[in-house]
């Protein structure tokens, strides 16, 4: 084993950017870490190279534990994204640097330097200064420099990122042949999946500090296990379907069990993936030689070189819920991506606006993760209400539940958990009971680091628990359901939104939850009384109408309401008049320092609405989780590298 990472974790300001990663890379393997920016992949390289200190876990290189060794003793070759050539040295001196540090005799140094410059295709350019070279040449020098003193592993941090397409392709080929020739275990970090497919023996896909899946390019493309990997690698069509004894069903599509369809569970909901090349197009339903999905309108045709790329729009199909490509807010049609080879395109030409029948040759099924809930209980009366309501909703939504008991000691805790377990009973997708001796906020933070949750359910009293709610929303990606007292399963949900991107997220998550309860929804927007512009009213109406469309594709019947006045008062009025038993509120924007604050309108509402469950939805756009981490990662890297050079 060349590189072994064990439960590696790195936190910046309490947020894990590398979260419990374990990975084995064998001798001579070319491993690619693939993920979008901010997913923590570069931090992993820093941890292996020792430029950043790990908070937890171990790094082993060829069986040697280097976790606490300084960078200088790790024998790691690292190529940086910006090359990081020594500007005041010639190319030759750059390449020889590692050797001269190790006091290798001059003759040997020269021999090795010439050998390497030859290997990377820069023979004869040793006397140049770095700034006299092109980007691609500089990157080759960086590679030669990293290889000169024969490192045990080679780490490449987006080495081709800054180069133009043609040079990138050429360097990619060189890189692969050099790596093969030297047989050195290599990790390359990239966000470019084409590069990953091209170079990798195996790929690891990362998202938000977690390593989601590891496998050969082929495995990951054909048999992804998670929704993220399925939609991140290559383009794909992902729908929600059902699996039963007979096979897999997605609306009108029926597929018998074959080897392609992984036996996940015998019954229940599954995600169904089909790649663009698995889509068949024909002028009539009869002409399709595979199960048919429906008739579509061609929305877009684009030239893809060796093949033609199409985007098709299908009308809503009962029982079909698309996951990817995502349906735009306010639309209820289904988008399908397809590719065709030129001869197919010639036989049945299609332009934007043409009609075609759509069939699917082959599908792959993935486990549908469903929703996962965390219920926090400290044994109080309101916590019991939270356990009861959370359990009922989870049962209806087939959600996995983690129950965390905290704030109680010894027997009282055990007795309480016993009771809660009984109350949650059966019918949950999974139940995990944990006890914690930390404060509720700490317990939630730790649990959310272990695994992301969709929803945290908390017994809530606005006088006592406001700051706890803020702390819970400060971490992770979950939304928050506040339960003040014993509540029935909601049948009428009031979704309070303002038009805009965050409002869209609020509607969509509320819809995902409410659809399982069989509840009706009302979308409410409050327009400030001082703003009399007809434009705003129009925009709000359009937005709410879009929300109704988006809810309809989720199977949630919805109506709209617009009120004019002060937000907190108007929502309060609507709540008391409308007989709602669930109020959905969007979280306010985070403060400039990244902190979640509920003071203001939300606090007023929480104080006024004391006898109904309140769902607080976190939008992707609020920045609590995403923005501060990425910025700080970079700053922190600067500081930590200072440590290593002392």
């Amino acid at each position, binding site marked *: 084993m060349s590189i072994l990472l064990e439960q590696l974790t790195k936190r910046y300001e309490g947020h894990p950017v590398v979260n419990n990663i374990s990975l084995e890379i064998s001798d001579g393997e070319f491993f690619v870490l693939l993920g979008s920016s901010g997913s923590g992949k570069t931090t992993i390289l820093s941890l292996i190279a020792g430029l950043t200190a790990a908070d937890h876990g171990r790094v082993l290189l060829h069986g040697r534990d280097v976790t606490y060794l300084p960078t200088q003793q790790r024998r790691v070759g690292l190529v940086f994204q910006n090359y990081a050539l020594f500007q005041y040295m010639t190319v030759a001196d750059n390449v020889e*640097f590692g050797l001269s540090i190790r006091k290798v005799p001059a003759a040997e140094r020269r021999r090795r330097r010439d050998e390497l410059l030859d290997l990377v295709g820069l023979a004869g350019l040793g006397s140049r200064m770095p700034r006299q070279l092109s980007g691609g040449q500089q990157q080759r020098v960086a590679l030669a420099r990293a290889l000169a003193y024969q490192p045990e592993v080679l780490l490449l941090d987006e080495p081709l990122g800054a180069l133009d397409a043609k040079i990138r392709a050429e360097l990619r080929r060189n890189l692969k042949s050099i790596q093969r020739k030297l047989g050195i275990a290599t990790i390359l970090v990239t966000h470019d999946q084409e590069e990953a497919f091209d170079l990798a023996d195996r790929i690891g896909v990362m998202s938000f500090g977690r390593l989601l899946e590891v496998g050969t390019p082929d495995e990951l493309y054909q048999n992804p296990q998670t929704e993220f990997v399925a939609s991140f690698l290559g383009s794909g069509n992902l729908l929600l379907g059902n699996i039963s004894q007979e096979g897999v069903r997605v609306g009108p599509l029926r597929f018998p069990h074959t080897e392609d369809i992984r036996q996940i569970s015998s019954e229940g909901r599954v995600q169904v993936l089909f790649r663009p090349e698995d889509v068949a197009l024909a002028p009539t339903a009869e002409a399709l030689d595979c199960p048919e999905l429906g008739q579509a309108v061609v929305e877009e045709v684009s030239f893809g070189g060796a093949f033609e790329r199409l985007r098709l729009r299908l009308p809503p199909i009962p029982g079909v819920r698309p996951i990817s490509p995502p349906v735009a807010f306010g639309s209820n049609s289904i988008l399908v991506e397809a590719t065709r080879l030129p001869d197919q395109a010639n036989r049945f030409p299609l332009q934007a606006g043409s009609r075609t029948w759509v069939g699917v040759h082959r599908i792959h099924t993935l486990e549908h993760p469903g929703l996962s809930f965390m219920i926090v209980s400290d044994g109080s009366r309101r916590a019991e209400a939270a356990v009861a309501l959370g359990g009922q909703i989870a049962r209806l939504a087939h959600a996995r539940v983690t129950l965390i008991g905290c704030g109680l000691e010894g027997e009282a805790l055990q007795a309480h958990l016993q009771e809660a377990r009984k109350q949650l009973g059966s019918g949950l997708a999974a139940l995990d009971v944990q006890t914690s001796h930390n404060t509720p906020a700490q317990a939630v933070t730790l649990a959310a680091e272990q695994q992301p949750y969709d929803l945290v359910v908390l017994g809530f009293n606005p006088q006592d628990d406001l700051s706890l709610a803020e702390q819970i929303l400060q971490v992770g990606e979950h939304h928050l359901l506040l339960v003040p007292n014993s509540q029935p399963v909601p049948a009428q949900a009031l979704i309070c939104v303002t038009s805009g991107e965050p409002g869209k997220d609020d509607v969509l998550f509320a819809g995902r939850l409410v659809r399982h309860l069989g509840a009706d929804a009302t979308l409410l927007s409050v327009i400030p009384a001082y703003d009399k512009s007809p434009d705003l009213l129009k925009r709000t109406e359009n937005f709410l109408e879009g929300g109704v469309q988006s809810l309809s594709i989720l199977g949630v019947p919805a109506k709209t309401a617009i009120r004019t006045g002060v937000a907190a008062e108007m929502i309060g009025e609507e709540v008391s008049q409308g007989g709602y038993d669930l109020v959905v509120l969007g979280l306010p924007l985070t403060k400039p320092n990244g902190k979640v604050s509920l003071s203001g309108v939300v606090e007023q509402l929480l104080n006024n609405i004391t006898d109904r469950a309140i769902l607080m939805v976190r939008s992707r756009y609020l920045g609590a989780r995403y923005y501060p981490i990425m910025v700080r990662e970079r700053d922190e890297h600067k500081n930590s*590298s200072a440590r290593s*050079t002392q």
Partner: protein
Amino acid sequence: MSTVQLTQKPSETRVEPVYRAPFPWGRLGIRAAALSYLVFMLLIPLAVIFQDGLKEGLGEFWAQVTNPIAWSALILTLWTSAVMTVINTIMGTLTAYVLVRYQFPGKGLLNSIVDLPLAIPTLVTGVMLVILFGPQQTLGAWLKDELGFSIIFSPPGIILALLFITFPFVVRAVQPVLIDLDRTQEDAAATLGARGWTVFQRITLPYLFLPLASGALLSFARAIGEFGAIVIVAGNIPLYSQTAAVYVLGEVESENRLGASAVSMVMVAISFSLILVVGWLQRRRLKDKK
């Protein structure tokens, strides 16, 4: 095709004349004001010194400069300034490095204190040093009795005073360069096996060389003309602790205008050439950056 078009086009295209204001008084006025201010404030006084120093001829000028007391004052000025520059370069770099790279409580305050010598009257600096190291004071007395080493009224005092007043020059020259420095090169050197001092010397220092040199030369130039602190600290003992600036004052007071002008001229010439070198270094740095 395209070449044909190219040869045809130019005859058709009309070059728009650049618009110029008919009477650019404003622009010329600004230039004239700035330049005449410069001439009046800097060049004329400088020219007068040179004219005055040379009015009795080169031979007399040379005699004034090589007069033993004047010569010794000049030499003392140069060597104390040189020693100060060496110490200041090393310690200033260290200070800048610590201020940029390390986090510690009170860093912000310390960073502001660096500029304090620019604000304190140099006379006060002299008084402070006399209070600290004077022969009647505990520390000064102890140094003299135990080590036979006196600071006040002797060259070490001059060096101390110069170090104090020129403290900001090197620090402020190096600091911004260190802040802007791309750290990945240092990281790269570390992965290649280089340790702290090697990394500093081979990777970081080349970037600091030009700012260091200009900071050092500036502090040297500043030190040559220092008067206020030295006149208090050095005690003005001819042939031992009298610097050039103090000597000039003495000559002015004893109405030897020629002697004063001649030595002043030498000081101005040295400072001026140093400033030219600093200017050249800074231009080269800008070119290097590109």
